[in-house]
């Protein structure tokens, strides 16, 4: 018999750590991540699936965690922004956002970082158009898209070569006026 209930026992792996919990069927995944697991890096911007601030990676796929119920993530491997850095050491992507001023108020940044992570895994050397398409689901209310695109370009170069190559690459990034997304 298939269990049909208002609460569900689930087990997930979050940033490499196994977690078990009993969740209400109606709980959104983003609330499970923030309130039950205490990982506040995943933000809630709009709560309607429009802004992408709550984006996380589930079983390798970028999703908005306000558009899933917690029980739907049962058995899944979840990656959040907290999992990007390695013991306090920023990842190349995070470092690029720092160096290229890829954030302003920072509210949308966790979601953008996860969208960029998904993109760079799928396409290590994206064009500017591909980067813009990849962050189409992430709204920055500071409208800081130009520097986000630069950051992701710089991260792509950094991961392609050494850290020195990345520094050279970011120095030669064309700072021409670009149309904001």
């Amino acid at each position, binding site marked *: 018999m*298939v*269990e*049909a*209930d*208002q609460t*569900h026992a689930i087990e997930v792996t979050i940033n490499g750590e196994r977690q078990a919990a009993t969740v*209400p*069927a*109606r*709980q*959104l995944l983003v609330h499970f991540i923030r309130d039950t697991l205490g990982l506040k890096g995943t933000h809630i911007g709009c*709560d*309607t*699936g429009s802004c*992408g601030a709550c*984006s996380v990676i589930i079983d390798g*796929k*970028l*999703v*908005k965690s*306000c*558009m*899933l*119920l917690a*029980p*739907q993530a*049962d058995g899944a491997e979840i990656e959040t922004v907290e999992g990007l850095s390695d013991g306090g050491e920023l990842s190349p992507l995070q470092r690029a956002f720092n160096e290229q001023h890829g954030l302003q108020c920072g509210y949308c940044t966790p979601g953008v970082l996860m*969208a960029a992570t*998904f*993109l760079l895994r799928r396409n290590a050397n994206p064009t500017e158009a591909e980067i813009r*398409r*990849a962050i*189409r*689901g*992430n709204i920055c209310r500071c409208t800081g898209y130009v520097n986000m695109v630069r950051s992701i370009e710089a991260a792509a170069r950094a991961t392609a070569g050494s850290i020195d190559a990345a520094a050279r690459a970011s120095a030669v990034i064309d700072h021409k006026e670009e149309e904001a997304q």
Partner: protein
Amino acid sequence: MLLESVAYARPETVDQALEMLSSTDGAAPLAGGQSLINVLKHRVASIELLVDISRLEELRTVQDRPDGTLEIGACVTYDELEHSEPARAAHAVLADVAGHIEDQQIRNRGTVGGNCCLSDPTNNLPPILVALGATMNIQSAGGVREVPAEEFFEGYFTTAVGEGELLRSITVPPLPAGGGAGYSTVAVGADSKALVRAAAMVRADGQIEDARVVLACVAPAPFRHTGMEGALRGSEATAAAVREASLVIGEDLSPPGDVHASADYRREMARVVARRSVWQAIEQGGGRRG
């Protein structure tokens, strides 16, 4: 946001899912949830039980048959359809349409079946499926029945899927010899809410032999514009002839008007997208004159 109390179940087979859907009052299938979760947030539907069908392997494959027919499982995501080799080989236009639905996050979760069963008149996939002459395979405890896509989309948020039934898969026949497909949209922003869409399948060899022209967003459901189809049949496969044929679209349409565009604008753009989709279909099929 706090949703209303609801029960959740994850059956392991389509048969189990059908059993739960038909035996429980207020049961609804949950696939990608990219519309349904928002419906739950807004509390505009009273759902007692969510039957999660998104992991059912039976519904998750894209297969090409030896005769060139493509069978797409209802729970295949837009992203999977976009990157499916058999889908791209058989119907590149269909794969491209899937790749331009909203954003990457939605494409990773939203399903082909969900896009069809929601039957929002602005949705991306219905018009191209009607143009390609797809068949919708609807399963119930009694078996599978086939409904042409042309009859499946009945109106605003209503389809041929009844109580105790599930859309199982969609079969898309191969393009006929000399045939091509096209798709065109005018939207508020790139990959965003559509004002008007058209999809076409045309068979041509210097001269247009057959044409299916489907308009969407301008009526409660996508529909074939038989007037333009008739005007195209037998005419030369030239841009001028296609333009001329598109002029029969007009007062027969009563599109909605809203803050994004007036009814008149949508009517005018219907001609434009119809023309573009037909021309794309002719180019894709290699049947243009000269």
